[in-house]
């Protein structure tokens, strides 16, 4: 018994010594910056930068083959950390972007054409006559976007809409490409006024299908500063490069335009949950 333990232990010890020496002999010099940068990156391995993972991006950045702000998830703070590791200066990008679901038509205000009882997934639902919503531009609310979000930033409201929490959203754009309706857009996080509608239908049809849809009346276009809101096929669209005063929202007869107060998520929640109605 004792000899068994001793001899195996001796064998293992011998092997580990051999390996230790081999590790010294065959030591590969890795740029210490790579490790530091990888430490600074979020480590979600989400692939938003277009590379297989954070370690691959760290390698590229250390070699100078990628920009220091190549990680869209980490944003400014990560870019600054990497800049100090690389001894580079970082000017900043001027704000981050977050995802926003461009639809306010929850179950209380938006009409449905039929009762969908299929697979619980927006993509499946969209394949069946474009989903159950009477408005073909509406959020189907079957949590496909929430499922792909690697950061848990998207909540499903009981009223049947997806809501992006801008404080948690990192701007990786995964939900934007996952939404079968294409109604999730990236908006600057510091903008407060949003038009929560994606419908290009004519006003009359919108009125029949949704109580908070854009009917294309163009009142907001006249109220807002020149060029800040423009019409795109019966839909008012905000040019986020320009600042829009909050009182423009009051001009909207359909309550489609929302203003995010101090707490961004709260206002959107209120509107999306049908509190305005």
């Amino acid at each position, binding site marked *: 018994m004792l*000899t*068994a333990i001793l*001899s*195996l232990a001796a*064998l*293992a010890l011998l*092997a*580990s010594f*051999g*390996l230790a020496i*081999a*590790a010294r002999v*065959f*030591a*590969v010099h890795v740029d210490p910056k790579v490790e530091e940068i990888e430490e600074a990156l979020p480590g979600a391995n989400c692939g938003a930068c277009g590379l297989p993972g954070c370690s691959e991006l760290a390698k590229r950045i250390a070699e100078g083959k990628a920009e220091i702000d190549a990680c869209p998830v980490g944003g400014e703070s990560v870019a600054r950390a990497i800049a100090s590791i690389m001894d580079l200066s970082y000017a900043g990008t001027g704000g981050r972007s977050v995802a926003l679901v461009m639809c306010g038509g929850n179950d209380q205000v938006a009409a449905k054409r039929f009762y969908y009882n299929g697979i619980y997934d927006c993509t499946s639902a969209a394949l069946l006559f474009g989903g159950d919503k009477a408005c073909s531009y509406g959020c189907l609310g079957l949590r496909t976007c929430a499922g792909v979000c690697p950061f848990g930033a998207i909540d499903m409201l009981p009223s049947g809409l997806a809501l992006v929490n801008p404080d948690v959203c990192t701007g990786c754009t995964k939900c934007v490409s996952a939404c079968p309706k294409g109604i999730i857009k990236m908006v600057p996080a510091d903008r407060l006024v949003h038009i929560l509608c994606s419908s290009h239908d004519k006003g009359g049809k919108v009125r029949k299908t949704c109580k908070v849809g854009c009917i294309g009346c163009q009142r907001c276009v006249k109220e807002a500063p020149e060029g800040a809101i423009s019409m795109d096929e019966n839909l008012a669209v905000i040019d986020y490069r320009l600042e829009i005063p909050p009182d423009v929202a009051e001009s909207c007869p359909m309550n489609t335009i929302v203003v995010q107060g101090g707490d961004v998520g709260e206002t959107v929640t209120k509107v999306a949950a049908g509190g305005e109605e």
Partner: protein
Amino acid sequence: MTKLLIIIVSTVFVNNFVLHRFLGICPFLGVSRRVQTAAGMSGAVLFVMTMASMVTWLIYHFILVRYDLVYLQTVSFILVIASLVQLVELALQKLSPGLYKALGIYLPLITTNCAVLGVSVLNIQKDYSFLHTSIFGFGAALGFGLAMLVFSGLRERIDLCNTPVSFRGTAIGLVTAGLLSLAFMGFTGLVKL
């Protein structure tokens, strides 16, 4: 001398480890898409198999038999093989990063390559001398390499062919492996060992 030659011919052609004994199928199917990686894998296995059979023989006869610990055979053999694989991995990472990347997960998987353990155990079962053991390990690795090279060459060509959709990839690979094995079965009875 004749005995050595017979061992070589036997392990490479007649009792080929992959195609006759069906050991080491996992890297045989896994890294045989390109001839280059197959050759790299064969090189790594050549080193590990030869060294493993020599070291395990020494351990068996000078430690396990002497102290009456033969029941520890499997554990100690695996220990040796795992250390050798680790050594190869370290060396490859330094000497040939490209090959290291191409082999990927299959390199540490040599540890669990049943062909390596199979060679070590067979050496003991057949009661070989030290010289015969090392030749047996070397020949087995050569046989493995031969099978790998032939198979990867075939697969590279099959990739260029117009294979029916349902057969593409691994399916036609397995059919090819079976036919290749069948061909090698033709050597049966060539030498008696």
